[in-house]
């Protein structure tokens, strides 16, 4: 594989670029994208350095933020609202949802604005435009893994050192085979939605204003503060519309042993996520050729 790529890369070094008005519907130069992998890495690095330089706590914020959020949710929804968390400790229940949700929402929001917010670069230099959204999805994935390790540490603590250990039943088979797919669904969905929104926002800034509101609605439409089992049987079809529901549901069930939905929902979520990326890339590659003239 490496040898093959090296060969392709070498042959591309002195290759011929043809520039024309040709508008193909789906045109992604994967080899070129691979050549620019260093740029993806450097954008991710920039994101981290720029965000945490001159902060006292640095990346520790990524740990504190979901912990504080879980605390707030515990007080409001579990204690005051009396919402069930399927019998598992509140913090674990909320954290398991928040980590995935945080990954999705931050990657989606930042990607959806990427063409407008980095127009100052894109107007002056060419590189495969997909580099920017991909670097967002990667850098948010790193943050997800930081939060995920906090979740694992807390999980171990509750399982082995507290009385709640008996109600937590991690399923190792599911953890190995299903959680990577959960993460994949989340990444693909945020990338696909982000690309599509980015493409449309270039022409119609309206979407930019809708974003905050939209994300909040989506938050409550996803079982983060309530268990999936709370969704009434006759409204189960909404699960087909929101791939994040099965993703979070299976993730939670793998680590905490909570009851999960029928696997058919999970499969459909995966299919929708893949479809979203295809549509997103399609819209994005359509607009990337002309957006410099529009923006």
């Amino acid at each position, binding site marked *: 594989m490496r040898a093959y790529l090296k060969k392709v890369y070498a042959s591309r070094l002195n290759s011929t670029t043809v520039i024309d*008005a040709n508008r193909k519907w789906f045109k992604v130069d994967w080899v070129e994208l691979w050549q620019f992998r260093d740029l993806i890495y450097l*954008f991710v690095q920039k994101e981290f350095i720029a965000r945490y*330089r001159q902060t006292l706590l640095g990346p520790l914020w990524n740990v504190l933020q979901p912990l504080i959020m879980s605390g707030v949710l515990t007080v409001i929804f579990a204690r005051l609202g009396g919402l069930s968390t399927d019998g598992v400790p509140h913090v674990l229940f909320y954290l398991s949802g928040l980590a995935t949700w945080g990954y999705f929402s931050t990657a989606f929001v930042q990607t959806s604005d990427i063409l407008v917010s980095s127009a100052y670069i894109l107007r002056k230099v*060419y590189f495969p435009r997909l580099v920017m959204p991909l670097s967002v999805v990667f850098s948010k994935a790193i943050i997800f893994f930081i939060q995920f390790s906090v979740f694992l540490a807390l999980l171990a603590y509750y399982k082995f050192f507290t009385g709640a250990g008996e109600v937590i039943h991690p399923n190792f088979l599911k953890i190995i085979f299903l959680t990577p797919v959960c993460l994949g669904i989340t990444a693909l969905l945020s990338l696909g939605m982000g690309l599509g929104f980015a493409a449309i926002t270039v022409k*119609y*800034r309206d979407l930019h204003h809708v974003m905050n509101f939209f994300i909040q609605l989506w938050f409550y439409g996803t079982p983060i503060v309530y268990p999936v089992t709370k969704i009434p049987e006759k409204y189960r079809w909404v699960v087909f519309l929101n791939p994040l529901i099965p993703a979070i549901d299976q993730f939670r069930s793998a680590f905490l042993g909570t009851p999960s939905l029928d696997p058919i929902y999970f499969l459909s979520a995966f299919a929708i996520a893949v479809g979203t990326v295809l549509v997103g890339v399609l819209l994005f590659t359509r607009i990337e050729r002309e957006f410099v003239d529009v923006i």
Partner: protein
Amino acid sequence: MKPIIEIQNISKKYRLGMIGNNSLRELLNTCSKNVREKGVLEFLKSLGTDEDPKKILWALKDVSFTVDPGEIVGLIGRNGCGKSTLLKILSRITFPTEGRAVIRGRSSALLEVGTGFHAELSGRENIFLNGAILGMRRREIEKKLDAIVHFSEVEKFIDTPIKHYSSGMYVRLAFSVAAHLDQPVLFVDEVLAVGDAKFQAKCIEKMRSVADSGRTIIFVSHDEKAIRTLCGRCVYLRNGKVVASGATPEMLSLYNAEKPLESAA
């Protein structure tokens, strides 16, 4: 020998007014205005063709020329003649409406120096980021790091975030990265000399040696002296069309002959 750059009948059309459709109300207004003026049927027909000659600007029309390997070609012409548009098309930032261009080799564009510089990053981190944006691999940048830092004369501050740089230090660092690109084809727009007089002389000197190294450069500038010293040949553009192309001195005198007439108008 095949020309390294072939530009064949490139045209670029901009639709004026269409660009401003930023809100739903504007969009509806234009539509309803068109429906009132033309009637529904005519309006629907016009959606496909959308050719209102008053609203169309051809920034480039039928531009063709070729560049041989090792040539330094200057693009001259007044503001708005299409030089920068052509450079943007060649560097793949925007695309032509018609025609095609073939570039036989890796190319990079310098439309400004320091693209993507981030204030919070150190000089060193910015060299890597900016270099990668311009198409260099990390390995290549590492090899050239010392040369870039040395040329920029900011050795002492290379690990300081560039928000603490003076504007002179900033442009020197930005230029140094650009000057150490090694793509065989370069498109350069006005970013020739930056900094104080002494550093500017150094920049010109560097550009000369880049030019002498056998690379192919298309160069846009309003600086006649720079054009004279660097470019063997010039292409003279006016209103998006090629007026003439040939040896630099003749082209410059042609251009200078036009200038007073146009500016008087």
